[in-house]
């Protein structure tokens, strides 16, 4: 049966615009699309194992990410955008992992062997995620890393007091369970050429991260006692020491890496630690938590100053810095272009650590094109390169945080898998869902939503923690976790579904009902004839969709195609009632009289 244009139009407006299935802000923001909403609710109910399983559907590193994820989900969390009090999503993730994670729960199924072999350069999160996905697809996988330990920057960048190393090792053991082969201590480009790798394997994924610390071209930068963050943190990570550094340490930079350098400095025995940034305190790029924790640990912040010159003695040893006052950091187009006034000051330090960015080293001997920061040139949707068998993932392709690296690893693996199976790299792929995206969800806060403060965690006292590498954050207790989880708003639309009983009988939201109608070109008449036409759905719909009106349109079409009669058996009686309601026996008209 054919429906009239108007009904089809109304149905497609609703299908396209209905937010019933739109992702919550947290889920959309997570590049891996972990079902945050679900596991937070599960923690709230005390079902920690279910929560852990939900997390593990997407993340092989629940405990790691629970401690160090830069959590884009929390930025977009409705409790953050409304009240500045995001749900502590990462903290809850860590809690679930500590409570419930056991190897027996891990899904170690792999795909049927394809006979194809993939080499991955880098055992960081991007390489690891790619390895997992490729094993699941049945390919043989070998990871090469120049280090002898796994984890990449999580291991040699992120300090141990934030991420205990045994957590990484435990969670990475999953890769061994899946049969991923590790070739540790092998540097591609030095111990083995990139060309050789391409020859030995059917495909190569480059996930070598950004491990070249950069130092800006300031006068005196070659003085004895100037270091970059990457080398500094790597050595501290591997040895808990950095013998070349002195006692009065200046860290240059305003991001999270700078905070890590500053806080690590205490832990290797500094007497004084300065943090010098171009940005003012209020506009530091670092996360607020890192800033607060650094300040608690007595790092001295010197914000709004740039390096004019590094001062040194006759032996070339650093003796201090001359700083110049910043006027502005960015130009009117938002580009990094600091300007300075003539105001100067000097500070006395014996060591300087530049935490001003990391660059990607070329492992390909020039075969792969590179751009700013050394990042390889790739197709942003597929991560394909100018070499058909080579894909790039993680920081090397433009990611900046662990969970992005994982999503990029997954993307590169999906492309490599297609390449190996000779499937088009783009066909049928929904790229939007392969990375963070902006949800269309736009709903009023649920009635009665209160501004409840974020549940604070249990940090060790700064005076105690700043001298050791043991975890500074002890995590949530049961009670705290449940309290925190209970703050979750469980963002969704489905407002009409709470209002209307009938819609619930036929779908999860109007989108289900109307898209099925459009797809099939038909609908069981009981659906439109079950609508009360009460308008409650439209009243609560943020888009004011005329759901009842659309059902009404369908009814009219049913009548047209059914000899003017309702297709519903039960309506026969109504037709009789209506007839009687217009019959002479029951009707009258009387003119008024004075």
């Amino acid at each position, binding site marked *: 049966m054919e429906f009239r244009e108007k009904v089809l139009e109304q149905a497609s407006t609703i299908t396209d615009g209905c937010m019933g299935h739109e992702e919550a802000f947290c889920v959309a923001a997570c590049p891996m699309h972990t079902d945050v909403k679900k596991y937070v609710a599960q923690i709230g109910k005390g079902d920690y194992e279910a929560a852990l399983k939900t997390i593990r559907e997407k993340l092989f590193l629940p405990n790691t990410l629970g401690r160090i994820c830069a959590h884009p989900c929390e930025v977009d969390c409705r409790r953050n955008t409304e009240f500045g009090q995001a749900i502590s999503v990462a903290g809850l993730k860590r809690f679930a992992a500590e409570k419930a994670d056991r190897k027996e729960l891990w899904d170690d199924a792999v795909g049927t062997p394809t006979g194809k072999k993939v080499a991955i350069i880098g055992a960081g999160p991007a390489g690891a995620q790619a390895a997992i996905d490729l094993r699941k697809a049945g390919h043989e996988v070998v990871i090469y890393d120049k280090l002898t330990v796994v984890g990449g920057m999580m291991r040699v960048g992120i300090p141990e007091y934030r991420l205990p190393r045994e957590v990484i090792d435990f969670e990475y053991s999953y890769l061994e369970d899946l049969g991923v082969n590790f070739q540790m201590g092998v540097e591609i480009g030095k111990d083995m050429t990139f060309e050789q790798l391409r020859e030995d394997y059917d495909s190569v994924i480059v996930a070598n991260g950004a491990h070249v610390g950069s130092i800006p071209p300031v006068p005196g930068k070659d003085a004895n006692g100037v270091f970059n963050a990457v080398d500094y943190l790597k050595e501290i990570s591997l040895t808990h020491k950095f013998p070349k550094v002195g006692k009065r340490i200046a860290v240059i930079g305003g991001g999270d890496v700078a905070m890590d350098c500053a806080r690590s400095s205490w832990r290797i025995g500094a007497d004084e630690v300065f943090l010098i940034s171009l940005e003012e305190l209020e506009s530091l790029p670092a996360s607020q938590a890192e800033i607060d924790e650094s300040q608690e640990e007595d790092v001295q912040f010197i914000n709004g100053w740039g390096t004019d010159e590094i001062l040194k003695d006759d032996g070339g040893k650093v003796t201090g810095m001359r700083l110049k006052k910043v006027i502005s950091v960015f130009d009117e187009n938002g580009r990094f272009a600091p300007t300075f006034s003539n105001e100067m000051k000097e500070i006395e330090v014996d060591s300087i650590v530049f935490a001003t960015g990391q660059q990607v080293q070329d492992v390909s001997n020039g075969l792969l094109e590179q751009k700013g920061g050394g990042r390889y040139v790739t197709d942003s949707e597929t991560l394909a390169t100018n070499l058909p068998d080579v894909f790039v993932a993680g920081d090397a392709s433009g990611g900046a945080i662990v969970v992005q690296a994982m999503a990029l690893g997954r993307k590169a693996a999906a492309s490599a898998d297609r390449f190996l199976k000779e499937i088009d790299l783009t066909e049928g792929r929904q790229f939007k869902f392969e990375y963070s995206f902006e949800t269309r969800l736009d709903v009023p806060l649920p009635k009665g939503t209160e501004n409840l403060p974020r549940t604070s965690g249990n940090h060790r006292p700064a005076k105690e923690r700043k001298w050791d590498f043991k975890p500074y954050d002890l995590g949530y207790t049961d009670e705290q976790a449940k309290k925190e989880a209970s703050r979750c708003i469980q963002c969704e639309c489905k407002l009409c579904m709470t209002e209307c009983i009938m819609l619930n009988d036929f779908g999860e939201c109007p989108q289900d009902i109307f898209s099925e109608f459009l797809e099939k070109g038909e609908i069981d008449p009981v659906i439109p004839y079950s609508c009360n036409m009460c308008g409650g759905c439209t009243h609560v719909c943020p888009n004011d969709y005329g759901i009842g009106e659309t059902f009404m349109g369908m009814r009219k079409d049913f009548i047209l195609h059914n000899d003017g009669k309702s297709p519903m058996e039960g309506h026969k009686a109504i037709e009789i009632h209506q007839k009687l309601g217009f019959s002479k026996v029951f009707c009258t008209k009387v003119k*008024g009289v004075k």
Partner: protein
Amino acid sequence: MTQNMGFMPGCSLPSYTPEGVKQTMEYLKQVYPDLGGVQKCCGKGTKALGQEEKFKERFAGLQKDIDDVGIETMIVACQNCYKTIKETSDHTAVESLWTLLPKIGLPEEVRGKAADSDVVFAIHDSCSTRYEKEIQDGIRWILSELGYKVEESEFSRENARCCGFGGMIVPANPDLAMRVMNRRGNDFDSDYVVVYCAACRSSLMKAGKKSFHILDLLWGPVVYLDESAPEDVLSSPAKSWINRYKSKQIVKKVVKA
């Protein structure tokens, strides 16, 4: 006030309470001595089934009746009649009894009559007029004039929920209709619910509420706690049609009086 006024009881109201129709019309007749009257269905049911053509035909019949007896403004006590005439007629004005009464006032003898009633009535607003604030205000005005105490629910006025009768779903999907009725009943704390649509009254009775049409309160005895509500007449087609017939005679009689 040069307009010729008329009254139209509709379908469910005359089927429920010929007595209510009578008293209402008698009072209107006092205010408008030349009050006219029409008893006919407005066609809402036909329209709700989706019978566009038949509805046009039937409404034209109603319109003709209205025009034949020279009514320019039709007073209605049913929210569906109100909506249908408002949306469909190009020349007959429509006024809800519930907005008219506050203008013309209530008869002296009923004002304050329920001041000593111990009942607190919840109000069930009709979903078809969820955005007609004036009608909703009128109902509250009448209740307060009578002296009844009321309580508002979360689902009052524009947030009103369907009683379960709407959209012709009872015959199409009776199980669903019953669930909708029960849900609506649960929206109210008070056992006593006042409605201003006879079909809604029947639904709420089915949901176990003691529900009263506002005309029951206006013209009938004062309601006290533990009293039961009037019978659910609309559940019996035979009784309903007999009443409808009685009401028709009343319309004729009162207008001609």
